[in-house]
């Protein structure tokens, strides 16, 4: 199967400190993978580096999108190639309405002018999936939004821009169960042979609603274990300590 996103031996530092220490990960087209791990494992850093955040320095390794090395590309170039990052903490941009912003973004994503009818069709579909009132489109981007609204807005952007690869960085954090279900429904509606996602989460809870094909576990800057959906349940039941020991043991052998 075609590798949609591939991370090869990725080493990344920030302020002189090495955070990613040789990450390897393959995300084939059409699959949804979960990326789990304890706090400070480097999950969010990986998400940001894949999206092109220049606050981090890539010391070694590559990020490939559909076989193309995108390691040196600007974030917007990556986005136009079909990459999307749903932020853990979405930023507020006062004075810019969601509708205006998404119109600009969709134009960039598709590389052409977007007729109003096409744009609104996408918006309406997204709003319906997320059970959101049209009134939100006139609000300024994330300004004064609750934590839950911000997350929902990330998924609205996902549904309108329809990327090929989405990275969801702790989209579940701060959501109550109803909001979580709505967000999961949004992501699931994107699932299909032309879409893949990397779902970064600390907890198994989200994975009850977005059932992953594969689960990766990160610890101390590396992917230390890869398995099926049952791995997430095992982590939920047993915590991360047993895995730490296993990794230490493997490292020592």
């Amino acid at each position: 199967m075609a590798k949609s996103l591939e991370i090869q031996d990725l080493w990344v530092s920030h302020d002189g400190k090495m955070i990613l220490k040789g990450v390897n990960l393959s995300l084939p087209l059409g699959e949804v993978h979960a990326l789990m791990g304890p706090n400070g494992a480097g999950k969010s850093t990986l998400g940001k580096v894949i999206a092109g955040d220049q606050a981090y320095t890539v010391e070694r390794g590559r990020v490939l999108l559909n076989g193309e090395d995108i390691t040196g590309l600007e974030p917007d170039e990556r986005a136009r190639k079909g990459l999307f990052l749903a932020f853990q903490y979405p930023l507020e941009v006062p004075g810019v309405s969601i509708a205006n912003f998404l119109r600009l973004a969709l134009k960039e994503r598709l590389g052409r002018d977007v007729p109003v009818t096409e744009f609104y069709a996408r918006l309406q579909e997204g709003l319906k999936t997320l059970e959101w009132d049209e009134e939100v489109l006139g609000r300024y981007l994330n300004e004064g939004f609750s934590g839950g609204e911000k997350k929902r807005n990330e998924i609205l952007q996902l549904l309108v821009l329809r990327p090929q690869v989405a990275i969801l960085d702790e989209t579940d954090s701060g959501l109550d169960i109803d909001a979580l279900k709505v967000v999961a429904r949004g992501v699931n509606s994107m699932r299909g042979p032309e879409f893949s996602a990397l779902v970064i989460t600390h907890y198994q809870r989200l994975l009850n609603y977005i059932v992953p094909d594969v689960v990766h576990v990160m610890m101390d800057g590396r992917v230390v274990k890869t398995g099926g959906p049952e791995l997430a349940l095992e982590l939920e039941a047993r915590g991360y300590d047993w895995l730490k020991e296993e990794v230490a043991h493997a490292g020592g052998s």
Partner: protein
Amino acid sequence: MPEDLKHVADDYQWGFKDDVEPELALKGLTPETVKRISEAKGEPAWMTEFRLKALEIFYKLPMPKWGPDLTALERQLDDFFYYVKPPSKGVADRWEDVPEEIKRTYERLGIPEAERKVLAGVGAQYDSEMVYHKIKEELEKKGVIYVSIEEGLREYEEIFRKYFAKIVPPSDNKFAALNSAVWSGGSFVYVPPGVEVDVPLQAYFRVNTAGFGQFERTLIIVDEGAKVHYIEGCTAPLYTTEALHTGVIEIYVHKNANSRYTTIQNWPTNMYNLVTQRAVVEEGAYHMWLDGNLGSKVTMKYPSSILKGRGARAEVLSIAFAKSGQHLDTGAKLIHLAEDTSGSIVSKSISKGDGRASYRGLVKVNRNAERAKANVECDALLIDTESKTDTYPYMEIENETAQIGHEATVSRLADDQIFYLQTRGLPEDEAAALIVRGFIEPVAKALPLEFAVELNRLIELEMEGSVG
């Protein structure tokens, strides 16, 4: 053109020079200059005397020391041309009658086209004199007067004299005194009781002569229950020598009238722009100042509203965009003299490169102004680490029933905001421009469409290559 001005010229769209030889040019600031201006205009004796007295006041008053540095200007004051009369047979009311070279300039600026499409009347000033003035016939029939200030004095002396220099007397400040001595050009507007002018009147100010000072004087009287919106726009070619623009704008808004004054100044960055704008707002009336300061080397401008009658209201929306080499010291004044008056100031400034935008404002509530309300919001956005902003909000509240709000924020264009927008496909420059546009949105949405478009174009131009 020297190297250091080149990049400015590239960015400044209106920097072309027109090939026009003036009929009369008076250099240096002397009683002789003042007399010759008055003579050239064929003014009544009282005006000549008024001018000469104002010149004396100008000599006496000190240069303002509390704001931007004006020492370079002070040294040059004797070298400016104080009156430059373009070749013309007077003020035309058909574009065909405007001299060919001057007409071409206004065509390049799109004025005749805008007049046909969206304006109720147009005035065009070229250096010292108005060269064109025209108002739509149906307004003229309703008694609306929109003529050059000279014609206002000539044809409507009685009304003129009742208001002229009563709102901004020459002694108000050094530059008001200067303007009073050498004023030339500007508009005279009178809207009769109950007449509503629904589309804007626009005046367009163009400076062409190098080393020139433009001193237009505008007097607007909005009679009871009447309504008007006046817009002024300003551009000039870019010279290596500095230039001076010192206008005085007086507006009288009578009972229950509604008036709005929009300025978009985009002078080149060698212009000193020192303007006094003041409105008196009577009972139940409303006045809005919409003030856009994009150009100039130094601007000092604090549109004032004197809330004189009970329940009078004033609003000020202000945008300043200070780029490298510019110091824009702008703000507003609200003077509450009567009960139940209310005022609001919203100021948005952007500083880029080593540009400096300052907010300077005054809210004054008189002892008798029961239940006055005023709200001030000033937000500053800094684009670069060396960009500067400062805020000087003065409050003089003499009545304890007043409700006064003040809020000020300073933010810097943030990398993480830009990154966020980039991950949605927007290139870095465009992301930065979008953030800047969003920042000024609350003010920009009140702008006439063509100015909003122009402002967006300017922001995009300025944000190109500005980050990263």
